[in-house]
Each structure stands twice: as structure tokens, then as C-alpha cells.
């Protein structure tokens, strides 16, 4: 049997599976994430304004005083990353059978999944930049500032790495609930804790490297398992 080779590039594979190319996916994901974040932030601000009877700028700085706002920031990209991660196009899903007959076969699937990882990372970077911009302009404040944004990005990588391990779970409810809980547990705690831990970015760096290694290992394990149990079934 050929080793996961595909004549299609990662971008082509991504386009084939999702109907959207590389740039479109990255920008689309980032846009969703930023809009989601803004929506949640406005909601929270309104709640505080009404609850405490204070005005807009005051409410925003209120949020910035505690890590609560950082949690809101975590929600948006985390949730969207999970949704994208969970589309595995198994045989019983619409399109699942078609994808088993296209050029490259399993290799194309591997390229598609790799594309998903890359898109998630790039869209996270874009989102992080946008969140920082909103923080600097004062539209939406982050308690932990730059440190929290970097923590969010690196912890997301780690969370994706961990969730890839549980992707083979067949029960969709268990898989869905499990990955949401895992993702939030990791990203929320990292985003809040890492900035508190130290003033420099060394813990972030460590988390990021650990996350990348984890993601590399888990995706390897995942592909082997998927090929054996889902693709060749």
C-alpha cells in the first residue's frame, strides 16, 4: 500500500473537502472568531452597565480589572477551532464516500487535516492580533494584555494536540462534550494562569513547544488509527 501520498497540495485538499481554499478558510475562521469575540464582549459590557448602573468606558475598564474578559476572549476561537476539528467526514456523513474515491485517497485526507491545523494556527494568530488591537484601542480590554493573547495562542495549540487524541471516539456526544470540556479547561486556565505565573514569556514558550510536540505526536497517532479503523473499514 502506498504511504499517504497525494498529488493534491494541502490547499487543494482543503478546498476539495471544505469547498473553501486556504486563504478563504484562514480569513473566514479569523473573521468568525473576531465577530464572536466582539459579540460576546458587547454582551458582557451591557450586562455590567445594566447590572452596576455604570457607563460604557467604566464598564470596559471594570472588565479589564479581572480575568473575566480574558475568558470571553478564549471562548470565541476555542469553540470555532473545535467545530472545524471535529469535521472528519466519516463514510456515513454527506461527502464521506466521495472523498474516499478522489485522487490521492487517504493521502488527500491527511493533507486536508494538515491544512485544518495550519488554518487553525494562522487564524489564531490573526485573531490574537485583532484582540490585541482591540485592547490597545480600548474597545475591548484584556486583563492579561499581550501575555494573555500569546497564552491563548500557545494553549490552543496544546489543546488541539490533546483533542486529536480523543478524535477517534465514535460516540458523537462523548466526543463533542469531551473536546469542548478539554479545550476550555486547557485554554482558559492557561490564558489566565500563564500571565500570572511570570513576567516573561518563558512559560508561554514552554507551553507552545509542548503543544506543538503534542500535536505532532497525536496527529500521527490519529492518522494511523483513522486509516486502520475508519478509512480501511
Amino acid at each position: 500500500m502506498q504511504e499517504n501520498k497525494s498529488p493534491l497540495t494541502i490547499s487543494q485538499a482543503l478546498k476539495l473537502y471544505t469547498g473553501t481554499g486556504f486563504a478563504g478558510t484562514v480569513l473566514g475562521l479569523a473573521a468568525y472568531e473576531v465577530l464572536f469575540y466582539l459579540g460576546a464582549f458587547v454582551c458582557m459590557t451591557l450586562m455590567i452597565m445594566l447590572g452596576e448602573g455604570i457607563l460604557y468606558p467604566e464598564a470596559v475598564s471594570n472588565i479589564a480589572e479581572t480575568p473575566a474578559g480574558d475568558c470571553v476572549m478564549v471562548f470565541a476561537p476555542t469553540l470555532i477551532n473545535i467545530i472545524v476539528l471535529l469535521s472528519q467526514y466519516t463514510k456515513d456523513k454527506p461527502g464521506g464516500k466521495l472523498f474516499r474515491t478522489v485522487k490521492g485517497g487517504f493521502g488527500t485526507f491527511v493533507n486536508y487535516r494538515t491544512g485544518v491545523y495550519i488554518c487553525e494556527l494562522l487564524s489564531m494568530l490573526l485573531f490574537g492580533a485583532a484582540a490585541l488591537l482591540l485592547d490597545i484601542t480600548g474597545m475591548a480590554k484584556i486583563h492579561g494584555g499581550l501575555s494573555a493573547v500569546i497564552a491563548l495562542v500557545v494553549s490552543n495549540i496544546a489543546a488541539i494536540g490533546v483533542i486529536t487524541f480523543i478524535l477517534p471516539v465514535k460516540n458523537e456526544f462523548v466526543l463533542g462534550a469531551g473536546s469542548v470540556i478539554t479545550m476550555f479547561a486547557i485554554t482558559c486556565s492557561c490564558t489566565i494562569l500563564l500571565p500570572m505565573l511570570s513576567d516573561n514569556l518563558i512559560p508561554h514558550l514552554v507551553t507552545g513547544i509542548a503543544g506543538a510536540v503534542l500535536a505532532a505526536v497525536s496527529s500521527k497517532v490519529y492518522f494511523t488509527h483513522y486509516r486502520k479503523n475508519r478509512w480501511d473499514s
Partner: protein
Amino acid sequence: MENAVEIKDLTKKYKDFTLDVSAVIPKGFSTALIGANGAGKTTLIDILCGVSARTSGDAVYFGSMTDTDDDGLRNRIGYCSSANFFPLDWKLKTVAECMAIGFDNFDRARFAELCAKWKLGSPDEKKQKNMMKMSDGNRMRAALAAVLARDTDLLVLDEPASSLDPLARDQLCEMFREYLTERDGERSILFSTHNIADMEFATDYAIFMANGRVIEQGFVEDLKEKYILVHGDAEDGNRAKPLMMSYSANSTSYEGIALTENSANLEAVGAITERPTLQQLSVGILRKAEEDAGK
């Protein structure tokens, strides 16, 4: 005669079901895979198209190709599943773009032409419905248009007719004949169905399946000579029954199929014998399989 596919002892084992098939798909013809729900038609088609893995056995395509993981073979087979061939958020435009990436021989102009013919709209239009909003029949048409827009040597269609209305089924038959005529004798079709009546005039070779096995196969005209349709008065039923392959009776009459070699004996006991239609033949053969399984 040459074969497009030769299937030798192809097996697939599940916990509660075993597929075990040896059959041929003759080159240049349209072959129907006929059987009840759960007979293994989809399993066989999926294995032949590389959608599912086999447990053991071989299938030889076009005389020499055996690896369903080979892009050369993938490009020559036009496969379409029975439902939801495309993700539900795809539009015709997405279909056109993705088919062009997934296969070497996709002709977008031909796809647009077929979409127009079946009144699905145009893949170049601004506003398009996605698959979710299409009716089952239109989803199937879109999938068929996409597969037919590829220049292939073998069409493998899983239940293409089941979601189509009578007019569309007629067009499907027409389309089969067009496909076969376009490259006279070089192209073949395999399609599955549990209702052969509408596809009778587009079927050249029939493979009957029951419980994961092939119970009969052959060219339709030969099968129509091998078997006869038998019916008669209920009174004579008991004398005719031992000579028949499948038999069912009510208070006024009985009917079933028998081997043609028994026709003189059957007529001697008062039976009427006729040349069967493919539909009648299918009912007889599948009923016999069901009776055998019940024993």
C-alpha cells in the same frame, strides 16, 4: 466476451453479515445489481470503488488493474453513492470546483450542460441553492451530472433511480444508453437497484444478490430463455409446484418461475408458461432465495 471487472471470491466480514462474491461485469454493457435491502449491494459497490476495504479476494478492472488506491484506476471509475454524495453546504459551483480538483477528467462545460438539461440551475449563477435545500431527486441529479461530466470507462452508481420520479428514471435510462454508445463497446455501467421495473430497458446483464452472495447472473436475454414465467389455476398448483423454482399461490391461482426445460411438463399439468420480464424474473429469483434462507 471481455469483462470490465472480474470479481473473484471478494469477501467482507462484519459481525452479523458476510459478503462473498464472485461475478463479472461485462465490458460494453449495463449491468444491474439486483437484490433486496440488506443483500450486500452497497457493500459490494463500496468495495469495488475503494470506499470500503475488503477482507479478502480480488477484483480485476479493465483486464489488468487491481489496486483501488491507484489514481489511474480512480480516474477511470465514475462512482456515485446512493444519497448525500456531496456535503450539504455545497452548491453547484462548489461541486464543479471540487470535482475538478478531485479528478483529472472533469469537464465543467459538460457539467453545466447537464445541470441545465435537468433544470438544476447553473454552476456559474450568482445565487444558488445548496444541497441541503435541494429535493432528494435534485441532489441525485446533481450527483449524476457531476459523475457524467467526467470522462470515465466505468460508471458505478448505487441506487441511482430510487429517488427519481418516473420521468427522470426514463432520462436516466436514456443517459445510460448514451454513455454506452458514445464510445461504442468501450464503456460499461454497474448500477444497483431494488426496483428493476423502471430500468428494464437499460439493463443488459443482471447480477442477483441475496444475503451477501450472488445467486444468479447472466445476460438478460439469456436469463429470459433459461427461465419461464408460470401461472395457472389453483387446483393444478400442487402438481406444478415440484417442477417450479419459486411458487406462490392463493385461492384462485398460483404463479412463479421455473426452468425452461420443465415447460413441457408444466404445460402437461395445465400451467400457462410465458417469457418473463426482467421484473418478473427478479421477483421469482429473489423469492426463491428468501424461501431457501427461511429453510
